[in-house]
């Protein structure tokens, strides 16, 4: 809007140009447009000593934490602070809450910091959390992620999201300005671990309600984290500067953080090489090996809590047969896939839980313990028992989102099925929105997906296969599995809980409605002068922890 008024203001100033005879119209227009832009500022390449520039994959679709911010999560984690934050090892650390307690694991009381301040100087209170959590639960919040409150079992979240109860009935309340109480539907032993999620960040009520359509703009934005929003140019950059009222201001070492939404991996890589960018969002696959050889210290490729999966539509034949699904799962050679086809640090996966999150002692009978030859032998036997053979091969279709990186791995999977079982696979890559549409309407046989953990607990990846989650998609509904997860949730003892998770994994392996292939890596380039960077299993990289050393 500012620019529009600027244009009009300049109109009169440029009117004299019209008087010059013969001056071509396009020159006038060019001057006019130049006059509309602000005078050139310093080059980004020569960033000042304390400015950190991070790649952000693409433009954030919103900066509202309660909506589906997708690409905005890194920015949100810098601007806001939830009750807790996720430490480098994946364990939670106190943030807006100093400490917490619960007697029965059902009612939790959080004691907020008395020195926490919003970027406008207002104190951060329990009321702010009550407000933002109710807003998140409310069906009136557009694109709201109310499902997160439901999945972590906050009392009445489901009914509030469905519109059956008013948001005031959500199980949260302020006992006093600095005590925030949460009541759950059922006891949860790892509830605090779920609270670093961006959807749960507090919001400044007066700002959100005072400027319902504009509160995410730099002009009005108020946040409680280490940084605040200073500039947002769509498709160009988002600039954050330190929140001067932040309680831990002395430990914020950067003068500003710039997020560049560059969707082209090559373009991002060029900006990194030119020195405009200090932490990339990803690494172009074609460059990965060369970079790891030439600048190993700058290449980061940690395993993260995400698994690349194949999903089988068990609601229709032929994949309603669990033995056939097993045959398909066993026939894929994960070692070949990860080392020869991908080769960027990925790790073969045999369970829904990423092995770096929880390493179960799987029994010898579990297919992960067999050799690949054994797996292939069993696969062939099951395939034949299901009524297929070389002469009468199974015909399948894999649907996946169109992406260069996907072609190679899906192609490899089809080749393995062909080699071991003789299956004829049709590869159908679809534009992302079309792909999602097909999955949602159940119009697929086999599809690909990434199972991301939302928090550092096996419950998170396992909960994607709960009846209510997977039932409508691939038809997996198993009350025993559901009960096991419910039991795990209230089990305090970690060893016992792990044993329950293992039972759930084994139960799932009997059905194998979707099959894990490999654990994903989060690939980034980080300049050597970025200090304090440490890999994180959930991909949480807080700029607050980073600084720039002289270089």
């Amino acid at each position: 809007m500012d620019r529009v008024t600027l244009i009009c203001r300049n109109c009169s100033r440029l009117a004299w140009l019209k008087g010059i005879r013969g001056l071509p119209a396009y020159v006038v227009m060019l001057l006019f447009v130049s006059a509309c832009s602000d005078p050139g500022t310093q080059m980004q390449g020569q960033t000042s000593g304390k400015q950190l520039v991070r790649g952000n994959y693409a433009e954030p679709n919103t900066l509202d934490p309660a909506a589906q911010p997708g690409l905005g999560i890194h920015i949100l984690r810098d601007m806001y602070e939830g009750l807790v934050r996720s430490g480098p090892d994946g364990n939670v650390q106190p943030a807006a809450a100093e400490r917490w307690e619960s007697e029965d694991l059902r009612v939790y009381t959080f004691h907020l910091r008395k020195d926490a301040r919003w970027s406008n100087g207002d104190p951060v209170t329990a009321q702010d959390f009550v407000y933002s959590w109710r807003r998140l639960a409310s069906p009136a919040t557009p694109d709201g992620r109310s499902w997160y409150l439901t999945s972590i079992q906050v009392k009445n979240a489901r009914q509030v999201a469905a519109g059956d109860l008013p948001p005031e009935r959500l199980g949260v309340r302020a006992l006093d300005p600095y005590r925030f109480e949460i009541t759950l539907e059922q006891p949860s032993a790892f509830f605090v671990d779920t609270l670093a999620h961006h959807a749960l960040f507090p919001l400044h009520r007066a700002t959100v309600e005072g400027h319902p359509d504009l509160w995410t703009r730099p002009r009005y934005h108020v946040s409680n984290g280490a940084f605040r929003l200073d500039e947002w140019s769509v498709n160009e950059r988002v600039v954050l500067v330190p929140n001067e009222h932040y309680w831990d201001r002395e430990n914020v070492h950067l003068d500003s953080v710039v997020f560049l939404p560059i969707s082209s991996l090559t373009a991002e890589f060029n900006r990194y090489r030119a020195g405009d960018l200090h932490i990339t969002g990803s690494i172009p696959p074609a460059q990965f090996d060369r970079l790891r050889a030439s600048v190993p210290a700058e290449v980061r490729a940690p395993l993260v809590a995400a698994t690349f999966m194949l999903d089988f539509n068990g609601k229709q034949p032929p994949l309603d047969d669990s033995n056939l699904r097993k045959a398909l799962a066993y026939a894929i050679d994960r070692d070949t896939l990860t080392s020869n086809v991908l080769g960027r640090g990925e790790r073969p996966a045999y369970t829904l839980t990423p092995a770096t999150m929880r390493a179960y002692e799987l029994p010898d009978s579990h297919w992960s313990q067999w050799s690949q030859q054994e797996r292939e032998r069993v696969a062939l036997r099951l395939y034949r028992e299901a009524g297929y053979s070389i002469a009468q091969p199974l015909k399948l279709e894999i649907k996946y989102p169109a992406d260069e990186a996907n072609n190679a791995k899906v192609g490899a999977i089809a080749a393995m099925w062909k080699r071991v079982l003789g299956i004829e696979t049709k590869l159908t890559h679809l534009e992302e929105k079309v792909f999602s549409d097909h999955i949602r309407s159940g119009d697929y046989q086999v599809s690909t997906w990434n199972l991301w953990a939302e928090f550092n607990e096996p419950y998170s990846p396992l909960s994607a296969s709960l009846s209510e989650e997977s039932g409508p998609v691939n038809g997996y509904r198993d009350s025993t599995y559901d009960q096991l997860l419910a039991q795990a949730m209230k089990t305090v003892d970690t060893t016992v809980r792990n044993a329950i998770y293992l039972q759930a994994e084994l139960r799932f392996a009997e059905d194998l409605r979707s099959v894990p292939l490999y654990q994903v890596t989060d690939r980034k380039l980080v300049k050597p002068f970025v200090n304090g960077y440490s890999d994180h299993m959930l991909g949480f990289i807080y700029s607050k922890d980073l600084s720039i050393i002289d270089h």
Partner: protein
Amino acid sequence: MLSFILRRILEAIPTLLILITISFFLIRFAPGSPFTTERKMPPEVLANIEAKYGFDKPLYEQYWSYISGLAQGDLGPSFVYKDYSVSELVATAFPVSLKIGLTVFVVSVVLGVFLGILAALYQNTWADYTIMSFSVAGIVIPSYVVAPLLILLFAIYLKWLPAGGWNDGGWQYMLLPVVAMAKGFTGYIARIMRGSMIEVLNQDFIRTARAKGLPTRTIMLRHALRPAMMPLASVLGPAMVGVITGSVVIENIFGIPGMGQLFVNGALNRDYSMVLGLTILVGALTIAFNAIVDIAYAYIDPKIRYS
């Protein structure tokens, strides 16, 4: 002349309306919706969103409310950039594309016309061959090949220029994108200019001028240039629209916040109102520039008069 302009404006209204109608229904019938997400949304939430944007109403009602909103200058909210309206996004992105596009246009026309004349004057000599070789190279080598090479050379090895970004359009940020975009356009103009100039130079009135002993400079500028510009004028109108509405490839490679990026993201994410808004803008600009070309003809070609 005035009645001609008035007629063109009146003609533009039904044309635009047809364009809007076709685009409106085409994008609606494309599979996928702006609210399709990987994670399935609770039906209540989806219903609320659809109600918020009026998607729960029958399609003809949505069409009607879109047209009436449009009449009041409201392009609707963006579904991709959820915190912005389409009008706002276009208001910030269009000046960026306009600035690059106009620069490309000026550079290409000046350089292209000059090179075209030169090639025509020295037809079938080494100068002609050199200019035409470069022109053809400029046209056939795609900008997605040239742009990364320019970045590699000037930004990464020589470190003279930034590898991308916009920074309110400082000249350092504009130089490489403009070169990458202008090279094909310049070659295109040079080729047209050469062809038409050769044709004009073979005409009787030029021979007469030469016979009268006029210097080449005068013949070129006063007698040959105007008729030789005729074929160029007809392609410059639509071409102008093409360059000022942004290049998807260039904007992506250089990270420029222009219209090209809005186009791509709008189409990929089924941002109905964004796609429609941009279609209307480009449609209106095309109609406007075609009208300007027609008017310009009247000045260039004495055989054409609008009365």
